[in-house]
């Protein structure tokens, strides 16, 4: 079998890229290969089951925890930080968009020149202004609701939908921020709204069960791919599930010839020849696939001449500060399932050298559990007294870390329950991380005091690799990166990586909108032939 383009993966990057290529040429020959199965979305029965049990239908396609004394587990961790993979990604059609929260931030201009500005980390090979128009397109593609008047980050195009107003719960945090001079704004969120532009997709009904939305109002790549195929005539676009790509086929002379994948149902190996291969398989699997794919001039894996593939792993340590609200007369409680408020006050150039961070009061900032109390048989009066009495408070956030060669992703012998090769994660914090967290703790304490609450102890910090990135980072210098600014793998004209793996840095914010922007830009460049390979600007990488 021969196709024009093989896209490996079916998440946001694969969906955006394929849609862009097919919008420009509906006859384009594209084969999308997804290792995982389909999960039924927008099903009312499954939604009710989620309501009752909090079990999502994609739970079987999450990584198992690392092995421990009394459990077999999957994958391995050799670093000091947990680098936990369980719940970090979904290995199914649609990828991690099946479970993502939809936080839709743009990186800031200084994030693209991290090393030049702060002396730490590394620079992108292009600036924010190059990606800015694609950020606008990505926000429309993902159906982001946000505050177009907020110029914290420069923009030339409004959000497609207005921001959700602060919840009553978030108002108290906003007041505290105001009193402390901490700037804040609406958190841009991928929840389709209502506008004058008609759409076949349903708007958010504020159902508050976002991890399994019954309406599909939160972007899920598989839903958008299904709709795109159903509403258009795309005769040469095919998606295969249960297709585990084992290796990229090298053809010699600086090109690849296709892929070999394992068909999970039949157990057979299938060879697909392609004019072009795009790896859109997330930061973990993209790096692992390159490492498993040697080629002439690339004995340690494609693009790995500089020993960069899999290295410089970054993510966002996610912290939670618990507090105690002394009383709750306004009966504050979670009425939504996504946050409406964010402070990017510490997401600035001045904070970059130490690691920027953002503060987000979660949807359940005030923890109230009517369901648990009723199930425990508590009386109405007891529940009401608990509601207006002392309550647990939470303030969350994410902090930026910097790429280090020793923080890496590698293949591990053995298959996981999906059939993918297992993963070895090595992730360790920098020595000054604890000192930085102490600074953040002091800020959280002052916020709680301003709210009439008290901080309860140190934060819990999760090093789960939801936002894993930089494992195939961009650099126009082959010694410093794996792909160039066109996302083309160094030394291979027709092999591309389009995942969080290519981002040299991710600032302090979720990388999904940035990834969408990169995917749409890649689609334009491939379709218009403006990428270097199409222009015959092939690379000569020293063997």
């Amino acid at each position, binding site marked *: 079998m021969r196709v024009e383009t093989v896209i490996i993966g079916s998440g946001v990057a694969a969906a955006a890229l394929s849609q862009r290529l097919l919008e420009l040429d509906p006859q384009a020959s594209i084969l999308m290969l997804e290792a995982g199965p389909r999960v039924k979305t927008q*099903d009312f*029965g499954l939604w009710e089951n989620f*309501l009752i049990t909090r079990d999502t239908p994609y739970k079987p396609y999450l990584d198992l925890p690392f092995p421990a004394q009394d459990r077999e587990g999957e994958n391995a961790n050799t670093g000091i930080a947990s680098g936990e993979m369980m719940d970090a990604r979904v290995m199914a059609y649609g990828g991690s968009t099946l479970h993502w929260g939809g936080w839709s931030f743009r990186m800031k201009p200084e994030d693209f020149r991290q090393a030049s500005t702060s002396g730490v980390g590394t620079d992108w090979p292009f600036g924010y202004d190059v990606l800015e128009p694609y950020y606008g397109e990505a926000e429309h593609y993902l159906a982001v609701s946000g505050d177009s008047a907020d110029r914290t980050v420069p923009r030339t195009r409004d959000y497609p939908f207005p921001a959700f107003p602060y919840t009553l719960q978030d108002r108290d945090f906003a007041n505290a921020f105001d009193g402390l001079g901490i700037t804040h*704004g609406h958190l841009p969120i991928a929840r389709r709204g209502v506008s004058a532009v008609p759409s076949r997709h349903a*708007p958010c009904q*504020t159902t508050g*069960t976002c991890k399994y939305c019954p309406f599909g109002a939160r972007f899920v790549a598989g839903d958008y791919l299904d709709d795109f195929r159903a509403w258009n005539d795309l005769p040469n676009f095919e998606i295969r599930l249960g297709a585990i790509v084992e290796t990229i086929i090298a053809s010699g002379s600086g090109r690849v010839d296709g892929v070999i994948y394992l068909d999970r149902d039949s157990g057979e190996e299938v060879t697909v020849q392609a004019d072009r291969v795009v790896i859109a398989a997330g930061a973990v699997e993209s790096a692992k696939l390159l490492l498993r794919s040697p080629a002439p001039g690339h004995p340690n894996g494609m693009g790995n001449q500089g020993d960069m593939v899999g290295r410089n792993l970054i993510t966002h340590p996610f912290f939670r500060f618990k507090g105690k609200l002394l009383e709750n007369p306004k009966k504050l409680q979670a*009425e939504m399932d996504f946050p409406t408020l964010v402070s990017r006050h510490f997401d600035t150039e001045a904070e970059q050298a130490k690691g920027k961070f953002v503060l987000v009061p979660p949807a359940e900032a005030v923890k109230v559990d009517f369901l648990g109390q009723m199930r425990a048989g508590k009386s109405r009066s007891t529940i009401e007294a608990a509601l207006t009495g002392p309550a647990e408070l939470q303030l969350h956030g994410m902090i930026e870390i910097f790429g280090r060669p020793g923080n890496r992703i590698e293949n591990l012998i053995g298959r996981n329950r999906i059939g993918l090769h297992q993963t070895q994660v090595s992730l360790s914090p920098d020595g000054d991380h604890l000192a930085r967290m102490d600074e953040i703790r002091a800020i959280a304490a002052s916020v709680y005091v301003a709210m009439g609450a008290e901080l309860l102890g140190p934060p819990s910090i999760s090093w789960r690799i939801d936002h894993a990135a930089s494992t195939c980072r961009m650099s126009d210098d082959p010694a410093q990166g794996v792909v160039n600014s066109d996302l083309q793998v160094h030394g291979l004209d027709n092999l591309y990586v389009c995942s969080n793996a290519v981002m040299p840095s991710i600032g302090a914010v979720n990388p999904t909108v940035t990834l969408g922007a990169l995917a749409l830009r890649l689609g334009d460049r491939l379709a218009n032939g403006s990428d270097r390979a199409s222009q015959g600007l092939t690379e000569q990488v020293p063997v």
Partner: protein
Amino acid sequence: MYRSRARHNLSPVVPRIADEDLQTLWKLFVAIGDHWEMREDARTYRLRHEAFLGNRIAMNPLYQGYYHKGCEALRSLIEQHGEEEAYRLLLGEQSGQPPPPLDSGSLEILRKRLVEEFIAVRLALGGFREFGGINYRGYFGGALLPGAPAPYRTGEAARES
């Protein structure tokens, strides 16, 4: 194989619940609202409740058995203690001992598969309003419409940065 609606392979296409059980299940659902003094008229939820029962069976065929066994247990509890006391024993704080004539197995089915699930549904359908909110995680609050109040409690207009 892709199906248009998720259903367990062993679940019947048309769930069958005996009329007597359907009535018992509905009365339990109403009793939950009464026990926690939920003021809204439960009758508006009857069709949703029946749809919920059918969906649970579609997800897991064992629910046909759970519902029947649970109803038998509830009817025996009512026969022994009278309706009001039976619901008080069932919905209030549990002592750890099953109230007679129930055994621990039938009590577990009744509590876990009926009572606890119906509480979650009742709250999500509108019972949550008793506790001050106008939206709830599980309730269809509606879209954020231009010019209309938000479908959740908001703060006053924020002084945004």
